[in-house]
């Protein structure tokens, strides 16, 4: 089995945030505020059906190597986005922009070089310029978000059914199975992040 299955793509994007272009790093503060305004479950990523795991973090200062007193520092802050996805990066970005364009403009839109236009195409182009390649990726399963969620829903359903049929006679066990069969075959779709 291939370690990194083809269906997954791995996005790593580093976007500069200019600290000098307006007083007091207002852009940086705005990005932090936009990120902080979203909880884990209220984030627009939750509505992106191809996103397994997504993280965003502002890298404001680099930690120097222990004993390094050179004083080298970052001139820009950097917005790091790391995402594990099904399918292509652009499909994910389109879904994200469709879900919450304001979030995109409040975050990457504040970064250096983001064009002053609305539209998913500009997000795609911008992320393409920020994307870092050449990674060594690892994925535990060659499964999509939908496959994982369906498998878990079926496991839950079967677990409950196994408990319910315990001690039933043959006909009653069969009836219980028949009642649950539809759910076992096609588990109710779960929203990303809902499990």
């Amino acid at each position, binding site marked *: 089995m291939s*370690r990194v299955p083809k269906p997954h793509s791995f996005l*790593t994007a*580093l*976007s*500069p945030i*200019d600290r000098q*272009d307006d007083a007091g790093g207002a852009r940086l503060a705005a990005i932090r505020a936009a*990120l*902080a305004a979203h909880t*884990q479950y209220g984030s627009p*990523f*939750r509505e992106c059906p191809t*996103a*397994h*795991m*997504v993280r965003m973090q502002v*890298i404001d200062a*680099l*930690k*120097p*190597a*222990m004993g390094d007193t050179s004083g*080298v520092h970052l001139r*820009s802050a950097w917005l790091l986005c*790391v995402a*594990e996805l099904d399918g292509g990066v652009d499909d994910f970005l389109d879904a994200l922009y469709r879900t919450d364009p304001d979030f995109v403009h409040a975050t990457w839109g504040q*970064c*250096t*070089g983001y064009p002053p236009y609305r539209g998913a195409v500009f997000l795609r182009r911008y992320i393409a*310029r920020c994307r*870092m390649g*050449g990674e*060594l*990726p*690892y*994925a*535990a*399963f060659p*499964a999509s*978000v939908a496959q*994982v*969620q*369906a*498998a*878990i829903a*079926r*496991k*839950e359903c*079967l*677990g409950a059914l*196994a408990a319910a*049929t315990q001690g039933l006679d*043959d*006909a009653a*066990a*069969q009836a219980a199975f028949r009642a649950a069969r539809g759910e*076992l*075959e096609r588990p109710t779709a779960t929203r990303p*992040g809902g*499990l």
Partner: protein
Amino acid sequence: MQQSFEGKATPMTVITPMRPRWRPLVWAILAVFRHLKLGVVKELAFIHFARWLLVKRGRLPHLSPRQPVERLDDDWFVFTTNFNGPWDQYIDAFGMVGGVRGGLDWLWWTSRGFPGAWPMRPFKRYIRYFEYPLDLYCNAYPGASVRDIACALELSSRLDAFLAATPPDEDAAAFARRWCAFLDAVAPTLGDTGAQLQEIPSPHSKVPLELRS
């Protein structure tokens, strides 16, 4: 201090500084690792996704003429992971399982000041020091661990076979016999994954006490 995120997967981002002269070696090491099966990591079954990435100091995106050019001494060696279980156990497993320890020694060997994946305390201190806090994290299946998913995927294919073999008009006794045999087969994978996040133990001292800032 990192915001805490609910769910069974914990994200971690570690960025270590690396002298640019090691680049050819790092490329070679990453190329070798790309062709390894990483079976040990699969067997440990607590990493959903992870990646290693070398960011060259001169290759940070330059997107505007007005953007100041970064003048850095070091490249960035970026490690991101999504793991199950407490931080301590995760790092313990890295250092304790021989195969992983050797792999990490190779991967981080070029990072400045890397003490080696053993002994444990300097290694943990090193990782902890170069960890960068997250601002936002999203996980499409926060209630499921790697082991939960492994069980669910295995069970799913067995369930497909059982459903396919179950005609609508089957005799009840025959069904019951097959049902019991099916339950026997899937019983080891039947643990409750649950939809309730409150069923998951609260994050346990993810960072060992003596390393907390």
